[in-house]
């Protein structure tokens, strides 16, 4: 069993070999070079879903800032990539454009340059885009960014300045696809975006996945059409595409469940849990999380003024406030709730929704006595925390595997499209790597354990969760040994875990499904042992 580091190394090796094989095929070579660059960047998480599902709001909630939607002269791009940067900057179709933040998302101001290049073919635009993109990061050797995606748009959009090892990471995938429709790139200083860059996209899921390593599918309800779309995200697209380890579903109308009562979130969470457990949903995604993007985004940016308003509302006797919380009309009526001005009430409603307002008032009433506490609780109730945990556990922590996965899926296509004799050998290597990559199975088992599709005995469930990397994927975290433990301690723990799970996997105490799960855990133990072995070897030699 090989771990994430080895997967990464071998992926690099495969890509390097592919680059060598294809040195005479410019088209394929460009693609492979783009893939090589992609390996070095942060995880690229696409936020996709039907229109008006709350994608942009959710992006705001995740970033914790009012960035989305991005507009240029009333026009919205087909997809917006948000990545970390030292200073706010934006590119529209590869051309850097001044950006200002408004209450309703970012506004790009078209200048002459933008229009000057709007009509030029993309191929000519690219050099400029690259130059513009690396204005601040020219030292990063980003020439590769330009060559990597022949004539795309936002080449290497100034990402290098953020301390990512000077890799000159660029928006590579955007080039090869050749779609029309505007694409924007926003660099924004944000801790959230450092490891995960978000792509807010209106593209269909399958096309969104061309550019992304993982996808968060946002939809109000998981209907037939959504399931069809999700099915298109996996399927027979090479050995790496069969398991939906890169897909997560967010049900985005949590606050409106059951007419937006105070317990709406709870109901929604229960519904999400039910959905998560359904076999046909489970086969298509890693996790289903109920979330209210509106409440979450507002909670991330809760202002003291707003808290003050909520506090005033909560202080009113229930008999006085409750009739006015019945409907939006009543809440915003000029004569209602005199302690808070009508204007403020309208803005509260716009930002939180009626459900959010009700929730906030209830929370303040039940003891949230400060803006920070209220924001925290609101985030909790809106499902944002759960979503963040899920993203962190299933996506961010596993970014190397997910990145390898998406890169190798593309490489698989390249190898199959551009047939040269050595490609067959590479394909074999690729398939071998897919077969040996244990983390995909780990992730699926983690999802199954989380949703309750597979149940292990209680005392083993926690152990399995930890060993599978549910609590962190470093060896120490997996083994549950303290950071200061010696190598010997780790060895002992690893051997003990191996022994434990070997008994479970090969014994007859478990029914078939948990036994299969135990076998996977056992393989994780083997992987840990390998890792320890490798850690120990350089020290010894």
């Amino acid at each position, binding site marked *: 069993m090989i771990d994430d580091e080895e997967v990464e190394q071998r992926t690099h090796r495969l890509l390097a070999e592919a680059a060598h094989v294809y040195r005479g095929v410019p088209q394929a070579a460009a693609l492979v070079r783009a893939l090589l660059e992609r390996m070095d960047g942060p995880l690229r998480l696409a936020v996709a879903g039907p229109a008006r599902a709350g994608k942009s709001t959710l992006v705001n909630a995740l970033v914790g800032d009012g960035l989305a939607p991005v507009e240029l002269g009333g026009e919205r791009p087909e997809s917006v990539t948000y990545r970390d940067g030292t200073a706010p900057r934006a590119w529209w179709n590869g051309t850097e454009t001044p950006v200002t933040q408004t209450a309703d998302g970012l506004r790009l101001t078209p200048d002459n340059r933008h229009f000057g290049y709007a009509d030029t073919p993309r191929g000519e635009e690219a050099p400029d885009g690259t130059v513009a993109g690396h204005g601040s990061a020219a030292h990063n050797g980003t020439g590769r960014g330009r060559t990597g995606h022949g004539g795309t748009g936002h080449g290497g959009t100034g990402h290098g300045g953020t301390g990512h090892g000077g890799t000159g990471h660029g928006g590579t995938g955007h080039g090869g696809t050749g779609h029309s429709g505007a694409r924007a790139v926003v660099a924004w200083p944000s801790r959230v975006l450092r490891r995960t860059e978000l792509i807010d996209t209106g593209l269909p899921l399958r096309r969104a996945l061309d550019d992304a390593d993982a996808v968060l599918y946002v939809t109000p309800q998981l209907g037939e*059409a959504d399931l069809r779309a999700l099915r298109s995200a996996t399927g027979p697209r090479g050995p790496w595409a069969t398991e939906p380890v890169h897909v997560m579903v967010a049900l985005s109308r949590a606050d409106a469940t059951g007419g937006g009562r105070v317990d709406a979130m709870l109901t929604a969470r229960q519904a999400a849990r039910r959905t998560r457990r359904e076999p046909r949903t489970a086969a298509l995604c890693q996790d289903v999380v109920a979330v209210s993007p509106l409440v979450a985004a507002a909670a991330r940016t809760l202002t003291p003024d707003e808290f003050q308003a909520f506090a005033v509302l909560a202080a009113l006797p229930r008999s006085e406030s409750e009739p006015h919380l019945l*409907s939006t009309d009543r809440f915003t009526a000029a004569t209602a709730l005199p302690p808070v001005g009508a204007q403020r009430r309208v803005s509260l409603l716009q930002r939180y929704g009626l459900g959010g307002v009700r929730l906030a008032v209830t929370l303040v009433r039940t003891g949230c006595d400060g803006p920070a506490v209220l924001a925290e609780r609101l985030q909790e109730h809106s499902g944002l925390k759960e979503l963040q945990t899920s993203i962190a556990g299933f996506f961010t922590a596993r970014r190397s595997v997910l990145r390898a996965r998406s890169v190798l899926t593309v490489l698989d296509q390249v190898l199959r499209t551009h047939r040269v004799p050595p490609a067959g050998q590479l394909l074999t290597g690729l398939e071998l790597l897919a077969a040996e990559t244990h983390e995909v199975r780990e992730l699926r088992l983690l999802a199954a354990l989380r949703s309750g599709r597979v149940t292990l005995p209680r005392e083993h469930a926690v152990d399995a969760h930890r060993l599978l990397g549910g609590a962190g994927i470093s060896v120490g975290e997996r083994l549950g040994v303290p950071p200061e433990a010696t190598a010997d301690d780790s060895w002992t723990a690893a051997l003990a875990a191996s022994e434990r799970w070997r008994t479970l996997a090969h014994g007859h105490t478990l029914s078939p499904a948990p036994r299969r799960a135990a076998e996977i855990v056992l393989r994780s133990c083997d992987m840990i042992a390998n890792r320890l072995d490798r850690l120990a070897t350089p020290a010894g030699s």
Partner: protein
Amino acid sequence: MTNWETGPTAYAGPVSLVPPLPVPSSRTEPDPLRGAGGLLWLDVLDATIRTSAAHGRTEMAEWLSRRRAQLLHPQLRVLVVGGAQQGKSQLINALINAGVCGVDNGGTAVPTVVRHAESPGAELVRRGAADADWTAEVGRQDRLPLGLETLGASIMESTARLPAGTPVHAEVSVPRALLAGGLVLIDTPPLPGPDEHAPTPVPGTGARAVHGPLTHGTTTINSVIPTLGVGGPGNLGGAGSASAGNAGTGSAGGVGGVGAGSTGGVGAGGVGSTGGVGAGSAGGVGAGNTGGAGAGSAGSAGGVAGLTDLATCAGADLVVYVCEGERGLRDDELVLLRGLSRVYPGLLVVFSKTDYAVDWRRNLAEGRARLAREGVPAATTAVSSALRLHALRSGDAALNGESGFPELVVYLQRMVAAKSGELARKTVGRLSGIVLQELAVPLRKELTEQRDAGVPEAVARLHATQRRLDDLRKCAVRWQNTLSDEIGDLMSDIEHDLRERTRAVLAGAEEYFATADPAKSWDEFEPWLRQSLQELAETSTNWLAERTAWTAQRVAGQFPAEAGEVLPPPALVAAEDALDDTVPGLGAPPVARFSPGQKLFIGLRGSYGGVVVFGLMTSLAGMSMINPISVSGGAIFGGKTIRDESRSLLKKRQADAKVLVGRHVDDVFARLNKEARDTVRRAQRALRDHFTAVTEDLQESIMDSLRNAKAAADQDAAAREQRLRRVQQELAALTELHTQAQAL
């Protein structure tokens, strides 16, 4: 048919037994027994049913009969439809103030019919088939009682016990004044959402396969009204010109996409697994939809068909479309609404959840504007079920007013009152309009086809036959010319050839006799000559035969291909007899012999001169006249003379032989030539006779088919004329009925 339907207006028998009229009479005379003008819509509907039966569209007739039964029913059945989580069930609950429709368990799974009864009750009804009427009577064993208190759980439990996919619906009776007037509310499972992310439609065959068992039985409306929801309503007024003989060109486009619609089923928008509710077939989206909003509308147009099927099965008179007030109407919803409004007048779009939506007023106004812009005749209103329920709980009249429900109730009550009047009239107007347009489509198509068809097949055949006859005539002249030309050529060729060959033989003979002595080698020469002449005769005979066969082929080549194999039999062109024994032998020429006596005599005569000459010369030398020298000179002279003589004799013999051979060869040539000419003539005559016979045969057969073709063409023209007249009559009838329907 149930008992309440039997009345003066009902059929005496089943629809299928209504005797079809040859030309459907569209004129519906008002029945004097009925109130004047009271139920004119029923007359129009009946006439439409009769017409569609007469046009062989029994599925339409059946569909209309079902709708007829519904229209005569005193109840007003209101179908509440909409996407998932739009508040349909809650709307019904709030309307009647009872929690009869489950709202909290992940969407309605089983459609629920809510009606009035003195005492509350609930049962699950299992229908025989997916497209069976919900209003039809079912046996006691198909009615499963449900617990009223825990309706949702009870429904779940009962459904779980039934085999998957069994078509069921729940019937709930509650004592409510609102429902007592005959209002029946039907809650339905959610419609499938828009399919933005999967633009590839499911192939029609797949959809059929899935819904196969459900479509079994009667044809679903989908196939009845394929135009539903796509394209503008065709203006049947165009058919007015059809009656005037102009065949209604313009209106053919009015019902665009019809043909394609009925064939190209796209099941993307079907009602799939909604407990077997009218999922009949979700196809019927055809190429006619190209003007729409692409794949999305294709899916929703499929939804229109499915939804209309559902509405028909449920016996709906009125459709209420529920849409969240939080968002405006989507494009695919508009397509759906347009399709619905074509069949269901009084369509109501309810924007729900106005308590929670912030911008519901703007969305409502936008929705109204869009409906008006798209020409969808639908009423709109906005309600809040939560407020209504709250108001009913707390007895707050003001809150009830805010909920928007009073308007909804008034609207529904108005519709109940208008059920047998205005609503029925409008419904019949639309139904008849759709059906009549649909009926007119094949007729128009026929008219167009006839006009566009150009020359009909029979006439084309006639023309072709005439052309063939002409061809044959030309061919007759042509082959005769060819034959005479060829024969002329052949004659001169054969003579020339014979002459060349005999000349060669002669040359051979002369060469031979230039050296050979005929006296000695005649026996050797004679067989050679005979052999040569024999070969010559044979060669020329063969050549003649070949040339004749070739000529026959050339002539046959002049005939058209359709005449088939016209070559004469080989015996006809072969030379009749070989010339093997026609070469006679040649006797040896008379030979001038040169006997020893003659030789002696001539030798002596020659030696005399020699003796004398040498004797004289030697005598000068003093020798005697006869001396050895003179004797030897005489001998030399004598020998010389003998040799000369014999040579001249040989020459003579050779000349004789040559003359003889020449004469013989000339004879043979003359005979051969004569025979060859005779043979050629014979062959010419045989060929001419043969080809004349062939030509006559051909001509006869072509004349035959010409007569047939003429008769067929005449017949065809008559039939077409008749058909055209009938189609025009039918169209005129349809137009008139349509006008009546539109006037309702």
